[in-house]
């Protein structure tokens, strides 16, 4: 009569499980406040994990996106005004400060360093851009036709200038989005003209804003590269046109005094043939420039190194986050275990009754385990909801990019359920191991 055990299949039958779950939910519902307070530990643990993952993922996504725009095969050289150049230095006694990259550097790089396909220099100057009565401080970039490909910048409207326009030194320009939106807020910019120092340039295209070099330590000359819509206005014109119209010396007023700088190239982008060569070629470039420019009036940026740096940072961030998550779920789990142990003691008599009516130890284990898992799982669901709401709110109110990966809430929820099992098993076993006779006598 007792030989075969009909329970084994019942334990896993969906109907039995469903009934056990609804009974478990009922017991939890009986102590609503206590259940809620118990689950709160898991709620906040899961919420913080999901929210922090979304924020961290968003931050690193933004950084990586910006770096990627700089081009993983590129080495970016920039001219930097030397810090000790305020007074006349060495041979230079004129008020014109001369510094930065020059055609000699470019030539040497191309001749001595192998595996470098092209070097695209550009000049950048600060000027006031005029559209009728409207004006805007911005930078004018003298570039070559290859510029958009080199900088991974896509055109949003119109086109970039071509070789013909470059050779003809045509007065055409491509402006970036932030210049377009501020100079032509209500109309399409293509076909309109922009006036700079009395010369009119026809707008032939609009290019997306530049990926910000957020990870470089300082800001290049030309000024504030602040985030988002505050991007600096840019006007890109053929290199030769710029040389024709502005010469190689750049004058400006600075705090009352007249000041002039002579810079041949403000920027040069070196394209390396193979990605794996980038780092070693960058070393060679640094070495070469180090010899040519003892004043260190240049800066070398290697996007792929920045990318690797960002990835390392992200990994560290993930480890820290993982630890915080583990600790908070541990705390939540201990909270649950504490309450479940109290609940087991409080329900000793109930356990005795159930045992008398035929519940096996495994039935009691299942009952209590279901309760803790329901508790932890409900906490997990609430936590995921909260954890999804927080980054959305942050994105909405603070304008910070957050990225919610589908696996993050799924993982956080599974971990909360696992926490329920891990911390529920001991109280459940304790309940099941009670002697039925003594449990029934319990007051």
């Amino acid at each position: 009569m007792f030989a075969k055990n009909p329970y084994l299949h019942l334990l896993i039958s969906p109907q039995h499980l469903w009934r056990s779950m609804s009974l478990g939910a009922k017991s939890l519902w009986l102590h609503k406040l206590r259940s809620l307070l118990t689950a709160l530990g898991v709620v906040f643990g899961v919420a913080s994990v999901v929210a922090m993952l979304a924020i961290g993922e968003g931050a690193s996504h933004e950084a990586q996106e910006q770096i990627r725009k700089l081009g993983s095969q590129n080495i970016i050289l920039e001219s930097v005004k030397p810090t000790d150049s305020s007074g006349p230095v060495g041979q230079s006694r004129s008020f014109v400060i001369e510094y930065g990259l020059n055609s000699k550097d470019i030539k040497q790089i191309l001749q001595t360093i192998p595996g470098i396909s092209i070097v695209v220099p550009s000049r950048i100057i600060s000027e006031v851009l005029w559209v009728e009565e409207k004006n805007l401080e911005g930078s004018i970039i003298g570039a070559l036709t290859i510029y958009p490909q080199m900088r991974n910048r896509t055109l949003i409207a119109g086109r970039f200038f071509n070789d013909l326009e470059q050779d003809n030194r045509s007065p055409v320009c491509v402006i970036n989005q932030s210049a377009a939106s501020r100079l032509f807020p209500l109309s399409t910019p293509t076909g309109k003209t922009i006036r700079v120092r009395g010369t009119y340039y026809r707008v032939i295209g609009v290019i997306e804003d530049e990926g910000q070099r957020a990870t470089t330590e300082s800001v290049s000359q030309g000024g504030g590269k602040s985030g988002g819509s505050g991007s600096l206005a840019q006007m890109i014109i053929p290199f030769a046109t710029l040389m024709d119209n502005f010469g190689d010396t750049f004058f400006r007023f600075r705090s009352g005094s007249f000041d002039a700088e002579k810079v041949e190239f403000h920027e040069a982008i070196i394209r390396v043939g193979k990605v794996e060569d980038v780092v070693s070629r960058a070393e060679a470039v640094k070495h070469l420039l180090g010899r040519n420019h003892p004043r260190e009036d240049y800066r070398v940026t290697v996007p792929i190194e920045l990318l690797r740096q960002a990835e390392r940072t992200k990994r560290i961030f993930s480890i820290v986050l993982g630890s915080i998550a583990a600790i908070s779920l541990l705390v939540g789990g201990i909270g649950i275990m504490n309450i479940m142990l109290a609940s087991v003691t409080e329900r000793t008599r109930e356990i005795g009754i159930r045992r008398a009516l035929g519940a096996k130890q495994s039935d009691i284990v299942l009952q209590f385990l279901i309760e803790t898992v329901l508790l932890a799982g409900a906490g997990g669901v609430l936590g995921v909801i909260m954890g999804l709401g927080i980054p959305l709110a942050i994105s909405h109110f603070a304008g910070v990019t957050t990225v919610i990966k589908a696996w993050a809430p799924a993982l956080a929820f599974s971990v909360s359920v696992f926490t329920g099992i891990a911390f529920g098993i001991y109280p459940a076993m304790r309940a099941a191991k009670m002697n039925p006779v003594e449990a029934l006598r319990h007051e």
Partner: protein
Amino acid sequence: MAEPIIELRDIRKTYRMGDMESHVLQGISLSIHPGEYVCMMGPSGCGKSTMLNVLGCLDQPTSGQYFLGGLDVSKLNDDDLSQARCRNLGFIFQSYNLIQQLSVIENIQLPLYYKGVPESESRAIAENLAEQVGLSHRLYHKPNELSGGQQQRVAIARALSNDPLVILADEATGNLDSKSGNEILNIFDELNRAGKTMVFVTHDERMVQRCSRVIRLQDGLLDRDEPGARFAAASSSVAITDDSLLPTQDVC
């Protein structure tokens, strides 16, 4: 005579507390046959509850053999004892022992739940039993919304739900006033007439009047084993009218 439902052979139960040994049951042998209505009596501390726990497969004897429905349960493991309880035994307690967070119907269904009876079937059984004990109109009430007599009737329905071989009760009427106690006793009479086998620990003289056999324990031993009052004085007026057997309909 038919096979006994319960057969005890030299059952002993000894509790050890440190060096102290207390021999609570000191060799009890007896048989209980189908349809018997047994009252177990004796002074406090003589081992009645211990005996009932052994009969109820809640506790194992220290030695001796116990056959329940022909099967030796004195050597079963915990899981098999649980199974024996949910298939063959029905329990009624002095303090009702209903589960507070479950409704009347759910309490009645509980043994069937552990027995693995499908919900629809178990529900039909439970509704039928609730009707028999006069609680059809209280199916969704919680135990604490019922009077003591009503709660004990739920407990009876629960004890019957798995159609057990034996119903065991420890002081089933002990907590009840005489009116609800009588109602419960009437239900027991009717159950016994329907052929149920019952073993009740009691101090209630009214129950002794109605039962078929009285077992008296003294210091862990069987002291006396005699027919109940209704058999001892067969001619006397123990005759019960059919009306009084029916559970009185609840009015509150």
